[in-house]
């Protein structure tokens, strides 16, 4: 009897957030059989669900256009994005917004004209409000996917399935293997092309606004497939995520709405544990800078009781307060739990938000593995060392659509590669081994919290060599001592621990990659700040940190960044 179930499809898409869903629509539209795999229920899992309410772009307004937009992206990303890739995003921005508008996403408009809001890091207003946030965007895309589902054979959605390995032979992808945990069976998806759209590792950090499933599946899968990953040290934190009281912990309280970007004097403000306003004193900066300042307040002993700071709008005028709560998406939920920010300061702290590093792609979403494409948060050379507000959705829609296009084109011209039974056999053994009872077996959730604790300590927004090296030691210790003991109860259907056991492996890989890159980048750039190298080094050519498995070993190297349009001043200067 076969130990797995085999399914054939032309294009396999892993991850059904906004990027994966968009890729599926374009792929199916071109006529190839498309399978969309997701770790949870489609439409209610993935990071898009918790996404904020901003969509970035460029607009028909004086002094705007793709050129100006690109300059904002490059400068705010501290010259670490590949500019040919970022240029694609700027060039395609208007089309992507038009598409979303067409499928029913509600944007801020005056009459019928888009109404963008100002955001830090952009010379002119660049962010539309998305009514209903990421959930609304995802539901609109899901409705579109359902149209193709009702046309049999176009899109198949496989829910409750975690992919554990990509299947690669001679540098060529031929599918993926994973666990359908609803049924408790191993699935092999045999395909001509694969799109990796399961990015995001925010849940590796103790304070995160990401859902629990965002533990970095995409990066671990890419790593073991031989993909080149870049800039894994770049983890964007969102500065103002609620920290306390407990029921609102993790809730985003947008500083884009609570602080005034055009006129910081009218507030709100960030206030430290000593009740001193420390931000903004003059202007509101980008997320990397705010995160740095907030972390510094806490590190230097001026934090709030739960090691954060306060977001304070209580000092604002009554009319300003009403303006803020009128536009603030999370006000209703705060009120539900008895928190009225008009009357009380709110404890907030930077939370892991977007993983900026990931698979290196070219302008047609290809990775270095033939037939393997990537899009959305899974990629690592789109934004650089900081991401502008609203630019995640832009990324998912531009590169999701393009991945769908190029992967389906590839699949149409490709031949089937035969399945390598020995590879599959190995992975079946791996996945099934977790169900064996083990003497001194440990639960995956215990090991997961160990990893989260160590990442919080060694890879916080302010880092240093000793800390990162301590972290690496702990990762190696967990790999040697805990990982072999991880097991799950012997239950087939919907076994949470079985899924989490696979996730432990992915988390360890991610923690290791982030640590290695953080150690290698001996400078401070964007979201990566090294106490022992507190300057940004533009005297040397700006480089990507690169991670790739070679002959079974994780190797680190560097590669120059593509700078076809803008170059920084050749100097070694302050980090911000």
């Amino acid at each position: 009897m076969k130990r797995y179930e085999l399914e054939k499809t032309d294009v396999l898409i892993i991850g059904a957030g906004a990027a994966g869903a968009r890729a599926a629509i374009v792929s199916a539209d071109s006529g190839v059989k498309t399978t969309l795999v997701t770790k949870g229920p489609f439409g209610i899992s993935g990071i898009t669900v918790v996404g904020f309410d901003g969509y970035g772009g460029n607009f028909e307004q004086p002094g705007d256009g793709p050129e100006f937009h690109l300059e904002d992206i490059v400068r705010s990303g501290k010259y670490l994005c590949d500019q040919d890739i970022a240029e694609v995003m700027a060039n395609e921005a208007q089309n992507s917004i038009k598409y979303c508008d067409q499928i029913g996403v509600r944007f801020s408009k005056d009459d019928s004209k888009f109404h963008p809001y100002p955001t830090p890091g952009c010379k002119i207003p660049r962010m539309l409000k998305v009514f209903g946030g990421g959930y609304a965007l995802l539901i609109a895309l899901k409705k579109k996917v359902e149209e193709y589902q009702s046309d049999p054979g176009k899109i198949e959605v496989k829910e409750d399935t975690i992919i554990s390995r990509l299947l690669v032979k001679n540098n060529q992808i031929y599918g993926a293997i994973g666990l359908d945990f609803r049924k408790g069976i191993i699935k092999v998806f045999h395909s001509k092309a694969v799109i990796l759209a399961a990015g995001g590792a925010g849940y590796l950090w103790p304070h995160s606004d990401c859902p629990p499933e965002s533990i970095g599946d995409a990066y671990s899968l890419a790593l073991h497939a031989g993909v080149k990953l870049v800039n894994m040290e770049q983890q964007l934190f969102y500065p103002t995520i609620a920290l306390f009281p407990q029921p609102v912990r993790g809730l985003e309280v947008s500083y884009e709405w609570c602080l005034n970007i055009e006129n910081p004097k009218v507030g709100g403000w960030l206030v430290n544990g000593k009740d001193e306003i420390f931000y903004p004193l003059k202007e509101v900066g980008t997320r990397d800078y705010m995160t740095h300042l907030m972390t510094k307040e806490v590190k230097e002993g001026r934090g709030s009781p739960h090691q954060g700071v306060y977001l304070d709008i209580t000092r604002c005028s009554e009319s300003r307060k009403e303006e803020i709560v009128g536009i603030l998406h999370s006000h209703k939920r705060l009120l539900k739990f008895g928190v009225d920010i008009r009357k009380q300061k709110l404890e907030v702290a930077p939370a892991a938000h977007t993983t900026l590093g990931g698979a290196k792609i070219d302008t047609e979403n290809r990775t270095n593995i033939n037939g393997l494409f990537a899009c959305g948060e899974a990629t690592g050379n789109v934004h650089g060392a900081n991401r502008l507000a609203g630019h995640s959705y832009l990324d998912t829609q531009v590169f999701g659509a393009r991945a769908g296009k190029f992967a389906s084109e590839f699949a149409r011209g490709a031949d089937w590669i035969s399945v390598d039974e020995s590879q599959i056999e190995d992975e079946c053994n791996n996945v099934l081994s977790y169900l064996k009872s083990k003497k001194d077996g440990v639960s995956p959730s215990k090991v997961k919290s160990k990893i989260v604790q160590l990442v919080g300590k060694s890879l916080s927004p302010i880092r240093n060599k000793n800390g990162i090296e301590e972290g690496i030691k702990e990762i190696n210790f967990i790999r040697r001592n805990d990982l072999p003991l991880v097991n799950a109860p012997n239950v087939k259907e919907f076994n949470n621990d079985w899924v989490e056991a696979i996730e432990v492996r992915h988390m360890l890989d991610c923690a290791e990659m982030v640590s290695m890159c953080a150690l290698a980048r001996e400078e401070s750039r964007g979201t990566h700040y090294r106490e022992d190298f507190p300057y940004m080094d533009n005297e040397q050519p700006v480089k990507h940190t690169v991670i790739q498995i070679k002959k079974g070993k994780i190797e680190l190297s560097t590669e120059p960044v593509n700078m076809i349009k803008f170059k920084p001043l050749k100097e070694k200067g302050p980090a911000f």
Partner: protein
Amino acid sequence: MKKNIITAKIERFDPKKDKSPRNQEYLVETDESMSVLGLVKYIHDHLDRTLAYRNVGCYLGVCIGCLMNINGKNLRACSTTVKPGDKISIQPAKKGYTVIRDLSVDFSSKEKSGAKGIDESTEA
């Protein structure tokens, strides 16, 4: 100091094996209020690893990933609080959702019709 206790009665059911659902009682020592989702996660992680539930979704009251039937009402477990001393009954979401195992349900069995089946007004 003696800690306070939350008593949770959880419906267990494996359609492949069991003829009918049964209730299992769990006692959780705590001095703090928590969300029902937090309570279920605690029970799974510390008391009974065979308990099935959905650990996905927004945790913020936006989606319905954590929909459960709590004290007879379909509610988001992330948005419903339980405090020390409480007795609480937790079942899989009712109103047409198919149970996969224990508290995990198949959302595709219901969501296409557009009906979310939440008894909204009683959430925290």
